[in-house]
């Protein structure tokens, strides 16, 4: 995902500069915060190689420049190398977003040869025991080995750490690990509470004290390491008083294609009920981007309600995240409840307070992401 300060406050001139393709929802890991839908099982008919290629070609014609291959686990697609080669040929800057599972030195070489420009590798802990507890499989040593292989290939790399109460106290150690692996960037992605993460929110959310300590560790490391390592720290929005400028605005520069071909303004948007999102099997990408009701629903600021409608900060944060507004207030057109001006802010305050008050030792177990725990496909 685009990082803070990555030059993203950029006017896309109405073009989908960032194209994200979720090649599959399948994944061997079981992260209990996974941002994939809780009923991911329902979407089994993935696009074919040829269908993905035509999406990529159409995206380029609409002005897309950055391309992210993600999932689920994109390494599960046997045609990944072919898709990367095609994307590179038609001019994308190609990024692979992976847990590293399924990535081998051989496939890495093939991907590099195909023109891959960058890898984002997720890592959840700095020891194998905790990592296994968090993702359900013993893959830590493989992740470290593959991180070294990525650097040996000379590919730039982001180490992505999804941050929860379980690993936030290891911020300094995780930075040391990143420095030791000689990656260019490490990103502390404080969890966003949608889908699986929302299901497990009370068990995952850190306390304010943990967060303050973690930020201090980042600050100290920045001073110590200077230029050697860029540390991104995505502040968890629940602890903030203003929402994130989600997606740089709905339908502004981001376009996601889900495994089944559904086109979305952001990876989580299909959780908003009542919007029908168009599918690339039925419509051209151009119509989807420019004309479909789904993409126009929250474009600009005509849809806004108070307090956003008359707020002079609306061009800065676009009223926050539509998914969060829907999940927490029941109406996607409401102000993101994270905003201190929102009449629903008390909902967030209560969650944060509960996180600090709860007795950590008697929490309920994490619900791991698994097809057995997945929600039944609704109405099918």
């Amino acid at each position, binding site marked *: 995902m*685009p990082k803070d300060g990555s*030059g993203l406050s950029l*006017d896309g001139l109405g*073009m989908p500069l960032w194209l994200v393709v979720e090649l599959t929802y399948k994944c061997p890991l079981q992260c209990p915060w996974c941002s994939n839908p809780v009923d991911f099982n329902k979407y089994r008919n993935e696009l074919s190689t040829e269908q993905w290629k035509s999406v990529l070609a159409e995206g380029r014609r609409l002005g897309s*420049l950055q391309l992210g291959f993600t999932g689920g686990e994109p390494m599960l697609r046997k045609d990944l190398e072919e898709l990367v080669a095609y994307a590179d040929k038609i001019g994308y800057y190609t990024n692979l977003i992976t847990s590293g599972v399924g990535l081998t030195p051989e496939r890495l070489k093939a991907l590099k040869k195909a023109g891959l420009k*960058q890898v984002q590798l997720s890592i959840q802990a700095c020891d194998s025991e905790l990592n296994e507890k968090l993702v359900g499989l013993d893959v830590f040593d493989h992740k470290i080995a593959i991180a070294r292989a990525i650097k040996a290939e*000379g590919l*730039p790399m982001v180490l992505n750490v999804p941050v929860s109460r379980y690993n936030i106290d290891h911020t300094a150690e995780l930075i040391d690990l990143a420095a030791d692996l000689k990656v260019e960037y490490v990103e502390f992605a404080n969890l966003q509470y949608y889908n699986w993460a929302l299901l497990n929110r009370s068990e995952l959310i850190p306390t304010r004290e943990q967060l303050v300590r973690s930020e201090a560790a980042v600050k100290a490391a920045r001073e110590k390491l200077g*230029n050697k390592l860029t540390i991104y720290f995505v502040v968890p929005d629940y602890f903030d008083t203003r929402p994130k400028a989600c997606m740089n605005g709905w339908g502004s520069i981001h376009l996601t294609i889900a495994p089944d071909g559904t086109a979305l303004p952001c990876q989580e948007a299909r959780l908003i009920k009542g919007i029908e999102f168009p599918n690339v099997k039925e419509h051209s990408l151009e119509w989807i981007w420019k004309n479909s009701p789904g993409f126009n629903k929250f474009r600009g600021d005509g849809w806004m309600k108070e307090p956003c409608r008359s707020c002079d900060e609306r061009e800065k944060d676009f009223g926050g995240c539509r998914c969060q507004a829907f999940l927490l207030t029941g109406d996607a057109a409401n102000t993101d409840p994270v905003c201190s001006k929102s009449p629903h802010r008390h909902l967030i305050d209560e969650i944060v307070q509960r996180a600090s008050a709860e007795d950590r030792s008697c929490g309920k177990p994490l619900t791991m992401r698994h097809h057995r725990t997945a929600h039944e496909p609704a109405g099918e």
Partner: protein
Amino acid sequence: MKPERHLSPSDAVELAPSFHFRWEEPQKAHVLLYPEGIVKLSETAAAILETCTGNPSIAQGTCELQDRYGRSDLGASVLEFLELAHAKGWIRVKS
């Protein structure tokens, strides 16, 4: 990011590895692509980057630009922009 030192006109600079600079027809502009980032460059910014990374020194790049625009006073603003690009990690000094 703070660069280690200031640039001087005798330095040779190049695009940082993993940065791509090119013309984009849909945007009708030069863009810089890098891990997780896109920058759309103004015409002047693109011209400075192109000439200064394409010449043996910043000074020679500046001469080429001055010839192109029929000016003789661009040295300071070229260096100023390159300092910015250097600070952002877009370019590095060739060793």
